Every structure is written in C-alpha cells, then in structure tokens.
C-alpha cells in the first residue's frame, strides 16, 4: 500500500479535479480531501443561499460531501466534479427544506417585471454590509428552484448544460428560469443601487 501511495504524484493546487476524482475513486482519501477543500466554500455558500440558515448550511455541506464520497464511483465525467457536487447539494437542500416545509419550490405567479429596468453603473457597485443584506434578501425572495439555477450560473459559473443536467430540465427551461430570476433580483436591488424605483 505504501508503495502504491508513493507512486502517486503529490497533490498540488494545480492538480486538476479530474485527476483528484480518479484518485479518490481508488480510495485515496487525501485526493477526496483535496476535492473537499477546493469546493467546500462554494458548496457551503450555495447551501446557505438555498437554506438561508448558516447552521443548516453547515450540516447540509457535510451531508453533501458525505454523499459525494459514497457515490463518487458513479461519476464518470471526471472533470465535472463541481456541477456534480452542486447537484447533490441542491438535492440535500431540497430534502432539508421539505423537512422544514416553509419554502416555495417553484413560482406559480412569479411577478417577473417586464419593463426595462434602469441599470446601475457596474464601476460604482460596492457591496457594503447594507447592500449585501439587501442582496441576500433579494436572492431569498426567489423560489427555491429558480434561486438554485440562478446561483449555479451567476455565483458558481456553471454552464447551462450542467445546470440542465442537475435539474433534469431542458436548456431553454434553464435559460428562461435564470432570466426570470435575474429580472426579479434586479427589481429588488435597483432602489439600493441607484436610489430609483423600477
């Protein structure tokens, strides 16, 4: 076993996810821990945004990675660990929410604004504590699925294809949901960014 470990190259920040996933699939716990350390911040932030409670997010993060470890052999696209683990996180969050039973999963009447919303100057956007509070509140107003899709795209940079795979949606549906989420988010943020009402 020692000889086996010695043959593996050292894990560095440059070691790609793909290599870490392959090594973790061969029961190298250091490789799985490296994957955890690389993605735990994003996964926890994603879960905090979905669950809106820090302690629940901590527990859900641990559960997410425990499930990821148990199911890692099933991950055949070795370079897609992040979308895969965020998909697991979404399931964990939705299960936790079902237990809590006080969140809307999907929007029926989403009240999406249809008019053109005046835009802020991106050069002058500074997320101070006050704006961050409104930003988090605005994210929280979105339905759970729409919020998850928006966060996967905007916060975690996932491709539409990955989000569609995680949700079991078509790509046009993903695009539509994210677009609507964006409009709602903007309507909530506008007064705090420009001092104007939409």
């Amino acid at each position, binding site marked *: 076993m020692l000889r086996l470990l010695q043959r593996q190259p050292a894990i560095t920040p440059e070691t790609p996810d793909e290599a870490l996933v392959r090594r973790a699939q061969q029961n190298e*716990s250091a490789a*799985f*821990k490296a994957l*955890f*350390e690389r993605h*735990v*911040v*994003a996964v*926890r*932030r994603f879960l905090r945004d979905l669950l809106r409670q820090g302690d629940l997010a*901590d*527990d859900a*993060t*641990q*559960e997410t*990675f*425990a499930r990821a*470890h*148990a199911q890692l052999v099933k991950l055949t696209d070795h370079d897609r660990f992040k979308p895969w683990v965020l998909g697991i996180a979404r399931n964990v969050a939705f299960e936790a929410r079902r237990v809590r039973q006080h969140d809307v999963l999907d929007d029926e009447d989403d009240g999406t604004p*249809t*008019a*053109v*919303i*005046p*835009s*802020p*100057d*991106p050069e002058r*956007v*500074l*997320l101070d504590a006050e*704006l*961050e509070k409104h*930003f988090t509140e605005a994210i929280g107003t979105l339905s759970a699925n729409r919020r998850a899709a928006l966060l996967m795209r*905007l*916060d975690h*940079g996932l491709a539409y294809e990955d989000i569609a795979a995680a949700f079991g949606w078509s790509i046009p549906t993903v695009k539509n949901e994210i677009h609507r989420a*964006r*409009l709602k*988010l*903007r309507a909530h943020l506008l007064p705090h*960014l420009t001092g104007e009402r939409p």
Partner: protein
Amino acid sequence: MSRCGRTAHLEAVAMGEASPATSAELRAHAKQCVLCRHELNWLESESTMFRQRAGRDEVAQLWKGVAQRSGLETPRAWPRVLVAMAAAAVLVLVVGRVAPRSVSLATDTNRQEEEALESSMLSSPAFLFFQEDEPCSKLPSGVGFQCSPVVPASFLASR
C-alpha cells in the same frame, strides 16, 4: 426586456466566457445600443456583487463531520503511553534479536575456555596423581580409609 438580437450573447462577455475579439465587438455594440448597454451594466453589476460576496466567505471547519460520516476519519495521534509502550516493544524485539547471538557467543567462548582448562587439568600430573587407582586401606580406627598416593613413573621421570 430587450429585443436586440445580440443581448443574449452579452452574458458570456460579463462572465468572461467570450473570446477577447467577441467581447470587444459586443462592448462596442453596447455603447451604441441602449438595451444592450443596460443589460451589460446589469450583468457586470451582478458579477461584481457575487464576486465581492464570494471573497468574504470563510472556510468552515467541516471536514471532521464529512470524515466521520464517510469513514474517512483521520487517525488520532497515539497517546504518549501507547507510544512509549510501542517503543519499548520495539526495543525488546531488537534486543531479543541481537542478545541471544551475543550470549551464545559468550557461551561458546566460555565453553572453549572451560574445555581448555579441563583439558589442562586432566593432563596435569597433579590430577593424574589423584586419578590413579590406588589401593586404599581402612584406617586402624576402623573409621575411614587411607590411600597411598602413587606418583606415576612418567611424572617422576620428567622431574
């Protein structure tokens, strides 16, 4: 929100996914197109806010819980008593492997010395003096024997 056909491509610009040439072209277009300018402003503002928020995240110490749930728990450092016991066991094993050899060596040496000594004693005239069968007679008192030492002729000749 926007009817300009190029708005849909602006997201790739804001997310840094478009090529430099495409980015430059779309940014130039957005300067002329109000709808695209609005959209690009929003997209870049959103990206800025998400990026700033992500930069403030703290890494929680969550590995322990994951390791426990997954059976990946890092082995705890051994208590000092166990370490001392293990060291003692190793020492005993090492000594055990070396010591019997040294003891046997010492035994061999002693045996050789003993054999040499025994041999010299056996060949000693004094010993031979006592080794010879000699007639013993009862003492006059009737208690005990008296033996007359017999000096071998060879010994006398050597003198």
